[in-house]
């Protein structure tokens, strides 16, 4: 078993022009665990996720992913660290972002073949295995537009897994899906927890967070206002804004 990796944020600040999106975020996600980031819209959840794998720069603080450290914009922790982090953590997007000109299998093979330089035969065998794992073995040659949203998202997960990451960053990956399609995606996610992958999940699916997460962080106005186990957060929220948020969503 490969070494498990945690994620740690210290005092991360992110500004867009004058607006403060992340206002000194501190949090630690334990290696091999599943962390759910919940909270009201505009609280900075997605931005936080994008900062972790370098899609967005930040203005102060630091982010540690395993042995690698990302610094704020303009510091020496350059593309090298970002590239290393991206190798360790894959990312799944709300709107899938499959490559529309490639089939499901080609989407999965693209990075292993051209970045990892895996031999085509080996990559292909692994790609088919992954498709089987997400329940799409029979759709290998379908183009993204021929797949349902849930199927597309499962291909996206398989695509990220093909790079053999230690963790996944999931950015509201079921928000664009019909209710009956959400389950097939969440089921795949549950399945991954048992592999020892560190999952960082931004989600509005509180039921999923409660059932599957090991840690829950509540973000509001750019800060972590409360964190703890699902039981603590959902059954005994201490923070008044957490209580209000939960009562609005669960009402």
């Amino acid at each position, binding site marked *: 078993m490969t070494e498990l990796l945690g994620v740690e944020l210290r005092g991360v600040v992110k500004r867009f022009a004058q607006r403060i999106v992340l206002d000194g975020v501190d949090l630690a996600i334990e290696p091999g665990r599943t962390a759910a980031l919940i909270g009201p819209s505009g609280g900075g959840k997605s931005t936080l996720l994008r900062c972790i*794998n*370098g*899609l967005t720069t930040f203005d102060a603080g630091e982010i540690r992913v395993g042995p690698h450290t990302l610094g704020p914009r303009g510091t020496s922790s350059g593309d090298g660290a970002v*590239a290393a982090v*991206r*190798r360790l953590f*894959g*990312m799944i*997007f709300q*709107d899938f*972002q*499959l*490559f*529309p*000109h*490639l*089939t499901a299998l080609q989407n999965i093979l*693209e*990075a292993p073949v*051209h*970045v990892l330089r895996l031999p085509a035969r080996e990559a292909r065998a692994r790609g088919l295995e992954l498709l089987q794992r997400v329940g799409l073995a029979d759709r290998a040659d379908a*183009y*993204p*537009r021929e797949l349902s949203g849930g199927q597309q998202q499962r291909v996206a997960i398989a*695509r*990220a897994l093909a*790079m053999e990451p230690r963790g996944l960053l999931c950015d509201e990956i079921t928000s664009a899906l019909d209710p009956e399609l959400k389950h097939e995606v969440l089921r795949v996610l549950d399945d991954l927890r048992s592999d020892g992958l560190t999952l960082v999940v931004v989600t509005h699916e509180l039921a999923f967070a409660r059932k599957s997460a090991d840690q829950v962080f509540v973000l509001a106005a750019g800060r972590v206002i409360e964190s703890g186990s699902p039981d603590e957060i959902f059954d005994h929220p201490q923070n008044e804004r957490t209580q209000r948020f939960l009562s609005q969503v669960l009402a």
Partner: protein
Amino acid sequence: MDDNTRETGRRLAGWLLSFLWLSAASAAAELPPLRWAADAEGGAPYVFKDPDRPGVNIGYEKDLADALSRELQRRIDFTQYQFSSLVPGLERGDFDFAMNGLEVTPDRARAVRFSRPYYIYTLQLVVRADEQRFDSLAGCRSRGGVVGTLEDTAAERLLDELQVRKRIYDGNVEPYQDLELGRIDAVLLDTPIALYYAKRNPRLKFAGAPVGRGTYAIAFRRDNVALAQACDAALQRLLASGKLREIYEQWGLWNSEQEALLHEDGTQSAIRQAEGRWTVRDYLPLLLRGALVTVKITLLSMALAVALGLPLALLRLSRWWPLRMLATVYVEFFRGIPVLLLLFFLYYGLPSLGSRYGLESWFNLSAFVAAVLGFGLNYAAYECEIYRAGIGAISVRQWEAAASLGMPRGLTFRRIILPQAIRIIIPPMTNDFIALFKDTSLVSVIAVVELTKQYQILAKSSMRYFEIGLATAALYLIMSVPLGHLARYLEHRWGRGQ
């Protein structure tokens, strides 16, 4: 008589006076000015712009027109007209007569009514001053030399007859220029042109005695008998009075040959060539040869434009502003100047620049290379913008998705962005390809004979504009329509999955 009546009377007198004055004026203006057409562009010594007074035309034909105006007691107004279009322009009625060193030839004599000849010309071979290889047309031919001349002239026909390799030009200046630059080996043109342009140039010399002999005459519409007769009579008077000789002597054009003008009774004696009967089998091979040149220039220019446009687009999308600036300047410059100007600059401008810095061999482009380069550079600016729009149309989220998989930017561009952009790029690029295909007809200005030029040459010498025009249009369509189909196929192929 009260004031009122007096006032009316004064008004009446005023009206009467105006009426008389107007009718007198209209009697004087009964004959509108005659419209005379010629090409003053590089037209010395026939008609050309006075180098000291650019607004004024001078030349021996201008003097002749003034003399005719006095003889006919009628104003003659000058109309600028492309030399090679004078005959069709006359038929269209754009002007009343053409006097511009028009040689009396059988083709022309079929289309227009000629006056009696007003000048007897010969043809003069001109070579570079240091030319040792030959001093005659026969010598030039045996050494495979290329001779420059004007389109649709007696000189061109003589070259054809003797099967000498030729290159066709639009103006009088360019052949001598190219001769100096070593692009051609000799120039064969009418004596007046040779006298004016080559005689005083120390880098050129006359080779051998004049050859050929023919006459210039004024061209009228076939049905304009009255004007033709009036002009014949006027020319006769100018000849008899010695006025014509005076004009020619002034321009250094008089020689003993001209004595014969008095005895030239009309036009028919000058026509010695047999009338040709052209069929499709005669002109189709020539059109096809022109089409081949068109295709070659188009393919090579477009290849250059497409190859150059992509790096330009990448520069325009660069994150570093000096690179963006560089590409923007390129695009604005080459998109903003007419390609015609660019062709002239590359072909005629660069060699003079090169000779100043001792780089002749670098800058002395062949006409074909100049054409490909000119269109390639020009269209690269357009293709750059098409690439840029196509690449910009792909969502930035695709870049992010690839980045999150660890794909570097270059790889992402090549494997993810460009293949999607190509589908967007293909239709406008095909449009440009077809537009370029037709734009290449501009290259005749630098003496490349492609399809349109070949059409002009053939149509002019046979006077069959319509029939040969249809054949030419058919050739263009045969080439461009499949291009459109190919584009749709490619679009479909690259659009898989989208």
